[in-house]
């Protein structure tokens, strides 16, 4: 599990995220490194829990982790969370499943096509729900915190 391949995959994740940092015009080098680390952390968590849990659940947990990480980084850097989050979820985007869904479709393998189609939607959904869950909780926390602060002063 945690072998050479594990670290190789994480290195590739980092490289891919770095590419996206440039394509999405992130400029501060320090921020770029931490944004890429978000992608690496998310994927590392996914790989570590993948043997034990169902795939969609793994994606959900990894996406929760990435969102938490992004919110934390946004606080530390005092920048919008947008950039960190966009880069962080990149490795989890179901590019492979989209392709295989299409391939099963043109091969006429209907059963596999439906299965793969639902899998793709499952992954995208898990990703979305993870982001929704954490971001909403953070917003709620912030609102409650602000109202307590204003009542005190």
């Amino acid at each position: 599990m945690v072998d050479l391949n594990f670290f190789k995959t994480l290195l590739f994740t980092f490289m891919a995220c770095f590419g996206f940092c440039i394509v999405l015009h992130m400029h501060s080098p320090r921020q770029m490194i931490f944004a890429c680390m978000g992608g690496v952390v998310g994927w590392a968590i996914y790989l570590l829990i993948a043997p034990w849990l169902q795939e969609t659940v793994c994606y959900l947990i990894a996406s929760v982790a990435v969102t938490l990480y992004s919110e934390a980084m946004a606080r530390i850097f005092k920048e919008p969370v947008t950039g960190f989050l966009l880069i962080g979820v990149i490795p989890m985007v179901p590019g492979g499943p989209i392709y295989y869904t299409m391939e099963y479709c043109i091969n006429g393998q209907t059963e596999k096509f439906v299965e793969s189609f639902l899998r793709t939607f499952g992954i995208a959904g898990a990703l979305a729900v993870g982001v929704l869950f954490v971001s909403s909780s953070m917003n709620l926390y912030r609102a409650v915190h602000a109202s307590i602060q204003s009542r005190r002063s």
Partner: protein
Amino acid sequence: MAESFDYTTLLNVATEIGFDLLQNGAEIYRVEDSVRRIFVAYGILNSDVFTIPSCILVTINDEQGRPLTRIRRLTASTTNIMRIERYNSLCRQICRTQPDFAWIRSEIDSIDHSPCYSLLVQIFATALISFSFTLFYGGNLLDALVAFVCGFILKPIFYTMQKYNSNGFFNNIICSAVITVLAVLAYHFSIAGHYDKIIIGTLMNLVPGIAITNVMRDIIAGDLLSGTIKFIEALLVALGIALGAGLAITAMRLLAIL
């Protein structure tokens, strides 16, 4: 606050900032919130801002109660994290210090003309993404090198089509088809072993990850209309990619290349 308070200029400046944020891929709530905060900073408490991904509407009342409205239509948007951050901090600064409008104008200008990565750097970045994702999805080094070349070709095509305002859906179909043809040709001439890995790796550049994330962030903030629009956009992108690759593979099979 200045003696001759100019509502029209304030409206224009605030709308400009909102429009620029939207254009550079900020979330809807960030756009609306920023504009509203600017008005509050200058003492206008009842402003109304409505934004969808393709349009921004801003209305305030001047001192006589006459309504002033500005609408800006957005046709194409990109994602530029650096500019979002700079507009965000400009907005915070405006709220803190209420500077005069000429200064804000010059600041907006300087952000608009701030240097971005050149096309060549972006092409290399695209190639790097293709290279890394091919390895990530289990291709070998040879596959990754072919993907690097594919990425190198992908970006200029995509950029040119965008420049001439080609339909985004059509754009994705063409790009995806071109990449698939290249990958299959590389496989045919036994340069690379896994054409599927090359295609996936390169197409990761087009896959709507950003759109999916943004959809959720809009829906969290309660912008269901914008969320729906972006969701359809993400679906269309995914569909375009699948359609392009599918058409190309089918064509290659008919020509007996695959």
